[in-house]
């Protein structure tokens, strides 16, 4: 609201003062939330940095194993063994709350399977197939961890950005505008008071001259 649009009344002044107090309280809380979120973000960033490196290494290892197996056993054998995988890993998605930000908690089941429970017979397969299965199980585990951490980071970053915008809006726009309006109303009220005082004095002088 522009300063000119404000009604220069006492009730408006009281109302504005209440709003300034509320905004300042909100500003303090949001600033604390922003700082807290930044701290949480950096904590997760340190974990995520290691996880991303591990994920890259697990991916490179899985690709290497699959290349070796399809070279030695042939892609036909490898494809045939992959048909046999019956227990597909399942992902359970829960959520937790970090300072009001809802972040995912991802848990995988059936990711790491026992050697004899992978769906293929052990007699007709070899260590190349086992190595590929092992490497991809590790990769899926790393993907689950990385997905949880990176989604959490993304959500935290979004919320930090949002909170920062609110803090800045309160600090540089809302509160200064309210203060400007309060100043304007105060000046206006003082001026009105002075006007009424001078008119009262004039009336008093007129009455004294008539008497």
């Amino acid at each position, binding site marked *: 609201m522009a300063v000119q649009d404000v009604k220069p009344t006492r009730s408006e002044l009281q109302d504005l003062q209440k709003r300034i107090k509320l905004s300042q309280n909100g500003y303090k809380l949001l600033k604390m939330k922003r700082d807290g979120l930044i701290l949480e973000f950096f904590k997760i960033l340190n974990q995520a940095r290691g996880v991303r490196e591990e994920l890259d290494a697990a991916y490179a290892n899985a*690709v290497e194993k699959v*290349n*070796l197996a*399809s*070279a*030695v056993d*042939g*892609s*036909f*054998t490898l*494809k*045939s*063994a992959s*048909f*046999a*995988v*019956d227990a597909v890993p399942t992902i359970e998605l829960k959520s937790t709350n970090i300072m009001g930000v809802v972040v995912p908690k991802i848990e995988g089941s059936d990711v790491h399977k*026992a*050697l*004899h429970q*992978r*769906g*293929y*017979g*052990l*007699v*007709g397969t*070899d*260590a*190349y197939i*086992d*190595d590929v299965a092992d490497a991809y199980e590790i990769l899926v585990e790393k993907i689950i961890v990385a997905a949880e951490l990176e989604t959490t980071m993304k959500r935290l970053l979004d919320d930090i950005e949002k909170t920062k915008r609110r803090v800045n809006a309160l600090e540089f726009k809302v509160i200064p505008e309210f203060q400007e309006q309060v100043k304007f109303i105060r000046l206006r009220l003082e001026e009105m008071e002075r006007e009424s005082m001078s008119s009262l004095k004039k009336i008093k002088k007129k009455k004294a001259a008539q008497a």
Partner: protein
Amino acid sequence: MLNTQKIREISEYVQDQLPDSVSKHIPSRLPAFGKGSSNYPYAVTRIRAMRVKLFPRDAYPRFLNMSLDEITRKIGESEYKQDIDELSREYTGVNLIEHALNRNMAESSQKVLRITEGEPHELVREYLRVFDIDDIKTILRGKLHNIPEDQILQALVTGGALRYTFLSGLVTKNVDEIIASFSDSPYGPILKRFDGTNFPEIENELDKFYYENLFEAIGLPSSADRKQFDQFVRREIDIKNLSLLLRVKKYEALENAESEGTQCIIEDVSSMMIPHGLALDTDKLKSLCYDDFIEALRLTPYWDVISAVLENADLKSVSLTDVEARLTRFNLTKVTENSRRFLISIIPILEFIIYKSNEVRNLRIIIRGKSVGMDNELIKDRLVIL
């Protein structure tokens, strides 16, 4: 007239009736007979002509120094030309080469089956049965897990006695119909045991059936050539059992190290062991823990082949693929040793099949390895140059 199967059944019945003290002295298999007239001279001459067309052993080091395009061109100018030309509409790049290699190998196997008669035909058919078993497993795996039919068809090799038309017909059926299709075949009794949940066990049974059947088909090795074939199969059984035991023991040791336990996690390992091996006492080895197992391996003839990988190696870093590569090389080299001594016998025929499948294996390793930028040393390490 009694056929071989009937004679075997009678023999097994008689052995069952005899007391153990007597039956242990009776050989577990009969001499192979009743297989009709053989055509060894004709078959071996044809096989020699086919053998000449294989890549010589010095071709592989040259391939290693070529670029992928050069290797592809070389293969495209060789025996594989027709297969590459015919498959080039469906596939491209490395997949085209691999499909062409497999198709050529399947056709060579079919040709060997066509040109042999009587005993060599029976032996080759039993030896190539491994392709049939692989294709049956692929179809059943695919059908059980709803894999699209075209993908299942693409994974078939058809190098055995079962023809592509029959196998592709199976792909359109459901699992029960597929099992019913084999009810009159030797696979019928095994496949009938499938209850919807035990497919890995059925796969193991099929693979064991292959070796047991081959062992039976060779019969009592009365001549030197049959002894060589017999030893090759029994050594292959040992190698299969040894790599399986190594995989199981390493897995159990790693799991136990994580949980600080000492128990055997895979209890049904006995059911996976293939009988009739050459020099490996699987009954003793299967009950040992990893360290004792490695110690016991020192006493076997395979230790010299694999000691470089297993000796003083940290459990986690032991590469079982290295062990398998060494054992495969060892067995293939052994069977081709002194093969010139047996000019008119099953050995030159078997040797051709081994050389052919090894050529396909080597070319695939080079092509696939080069296409993904694999290190030349690693590729060389996996090749078996006979």
